């Protein structure tokens, strides 16, 4: 087993276990912390896939910005396991069953069209040089549109969050 496969399996186990604990944890703070672990495992997968720029952006944006926002909101609301709203166990059971059924359906559908392609070698399309050139030549209009989206999201968040 090569070092890449060992890393793949380790990161996969970490990602899946912490993703399950996001859903299962009673305390919302534990959910946020395990989601951060999931994001770091996914960033490791990006490095394995030669997408170094995306790995760094993923850590900065998700673990650095989004999850800090979640943690701040949870601390601001002082949420804990006692006041955590719980669904009835029948509804929870039905949710788990439907999620599992979705997994079965997707696996069955994708198993038929199983592609045997193998990812190998290492490419340098994930480096910031190539991505930047592509971003500012082919994707310059979506880039500008996303800056307007950010501006409107910022204004929207301020307007919504303001005390009346």
């Amino acid at each position, binding site marked *: 087993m090569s070092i890449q496969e060992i890393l793949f399996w380790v990161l996969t186990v970490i990602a899946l276990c912490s993703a399950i604990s996001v859903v299962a944890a009673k305390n919302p703070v534990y959910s946020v912390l395990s989601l951060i672990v999931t994001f770091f495992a996914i960033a490791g997968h990006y490095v394995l896939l030669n997408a170094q720029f*995306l790995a760094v952006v993923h850590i900065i944006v998700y673990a650095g910005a989004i999850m800090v926002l979640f943690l701040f909101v949870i601390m601001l609301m002082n949420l804990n396991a006692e006041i955590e709203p719980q669904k009835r166990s029948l509804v929870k059971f039905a949710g788990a069953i439907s999620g599992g059924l979705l997994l079965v359906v997707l696996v069955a559908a994708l198993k038929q069209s199983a592609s045997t392609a193998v990812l190998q070698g290492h490419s340098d*399309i*994930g480096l910031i040089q190539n991505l930047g050139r592509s971003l500012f030549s082919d994707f310059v209009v*979506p880039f500008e549109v996303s800056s307007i989206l950010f501006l409107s999201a910022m204004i929207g968040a301020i307007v919504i969050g303001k005390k009346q």
Partner: protein
Amino acid sequence: MPVQYYIWLAVALFCIGVTGVLMRRNAIIIFMCIELMLNAVNLLLVAFSKLHHDAAAQLFVFFIMVVAAAEVSVGLAIIVMTYRHTHAVDINILNRLKH
């Protein structure tokens, strides 16, 4: 690495996210499960970008991250506003919007 492994991993992460949305009532945790689903799709896009040696998929992932950040900022502002009015983050509170 066969690309299949990444497909199964992304499918598993996506289904965990769907299960979380269906099982939990806390609006913030439902939001986090949506992030989980977005990340499963991102991982699959990066895997196929390596398979086809195409940089466009990685830029799509970049734009998905941008949109997710904007979505989270507005969504959390809405959750904070409902919390200020109702002192709960229970998603069933939003049923009152019907009346």
